[in-house]
């Protein structure tokens, strides 16, 4: 049996987080947990070392998703996909937005198909980097 890829979800809206985790399970991933704040995300990611993190940018608490991502990438180099209401779908789709390596981008509201495509893209890139 193929080992399931493990995903951490960082989202402070419970319903959105629940939807994300249901979609990820449906797509065949294992959800390591749901973090409601940047601090929790840093702690959980370092503890569980997931293969990927779905990261909301606007979070309740002192830090936001961008700051958490900087720390996580520096410490554990885990690929991150921003799932955010910020941004412009056309720009991110056309590739004009300078998205750094190991980073994905999904604009809310998302749906299952969008999540599937971006998760597969980022995981494929990060596994080719690690070869």
């Amino acid at each position, binding site marked *: 049996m193929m080992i399931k890829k493990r995903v951490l979800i960082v989202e402070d809206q419970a*319903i*959105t987080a629940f939807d994300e985790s249901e979609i990820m399970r449906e797509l065949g991933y294992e959800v390591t947990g749901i973090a409601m704040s940047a601090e929790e995300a840093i702690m959980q990611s370092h503890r569980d070392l997931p293969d990927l993190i779905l990261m909301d940018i*606007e979070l309740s608490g002192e830090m936001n998703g961008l700051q958490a991502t900087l720390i996580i990438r520096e410490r554990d180099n885990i690929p991150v996909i921003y799932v955010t*209401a910020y*941004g412009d*779908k056309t720009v991110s789709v056309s590739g004009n937005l300078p998205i750094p390596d190991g980073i994905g981008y999904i604009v*809310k509201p998302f749906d299952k*198909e969008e999540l599937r*495509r971006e998760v597969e893209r980022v995981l494929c890139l990060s596994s080719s980097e690690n070869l």
Partner: protein
Amino acid sequence: MCKTKNDELLLRISELDDELKNAHLTSEYAALQAKTIANITKKKEQKLEAQVRVLKTNLDRTRGINREQLKNVESNYAELIATAEELDVANTDKGARLAELVIANQEKDARAAELVIANQEKDARAAELVIAKEKLVCENEEKDARLAALAIANQEKDARAAELVIANQEKDARAAELVIANKELAFQNDQKEARAIELESAGEKVKATLQEKEVLLREIHHRVKNNLQIISSMLSLQARVEPDAASRKALVECQRRVKVMARIHESLHQSNNVTAVDARDYINAIVADTVDSSQINSQKVKTLVEVDKINIDIDTAIVCGQIFSELFSNCIKHAFPDDRSGSIKVTMRRDERGRMELKVVDDGIGLLEGFNIHKSATLGMKLVGALTTQLNGEINIDGSCGTSVWITFKGKK
């Protein structure tokens, strides 16, 4: 007998005696001859001695002369050698000089050839100059004529100058009046400056308030999108537990419609204008969403978007976006069944009278025979009809070759 012998002897003696006498005579002759020869010899000797002396003298003299000549010859020889050396040197110099002259000669030949060419050029130039001269003569004549005209003009200007002097005096008087007026204006200006400073500070306050409002508005758009995400998630979660396939599909459709609403807030959030959106960005965002959410192969079905850069107000944009989303997702879902390939063209423009036209054209399978939008049972087409009515617009459909749907409506300025 004895007597004959005797006579013979006597005869013999007499013969001998004669011979003796002859001998004496011969001897005497010989002595005399010898004496004569001695004398001759002596004389000859004396003569010879004299000749020898003369010869000796001559010899001495000749020797002296010879010595002198020898000296002369030696000195001449030395001179000749010196001269020869000098000539040698001169000769070498002349050789070098000759080589130089040969080179110089060649250079002169080359120069001569150049001069010939230059000469030809000069000839040509001379010919040109002759023509130019003729031209100049002609121009000169024209200038003379012009000069005459200018002289007349000058006189006119002199007259005008005199008039200007008078006018200037009048202006001086006016300037004095203006100085007084200026002072009055300066006083008014000071007052205005004070007022401007007040206005500037008020303006800055207004600007700060405006910025604050813009930030708040962006924040609201952001929150709206987050809330729409929650609604979308609720629909998604509900669909997941729904056992009936048709209900699940309906919920997914609702999710798409919520997303169209969210895109308008995204466009407002992105643009500098928070009350109107750029139709091009908005349409592109909906196209990207619909293609991403669908199962369609974007390599097989190409989408071409040709939308003018038009700003549309938020109310029109929401309705227009909903109409477009229904039409475009219909195309994606129904126009290319069984992995069929083709293209969808989206255009939107505003004509000179301000009327907007939104057109979605595909080269797919086309409409079913007898299709009538007003009798269509699908929710999508019902929504399109209702929303077009909201815009006071018209809808046209042509299903003869693929499907073309276009909506026209009056856009708000």
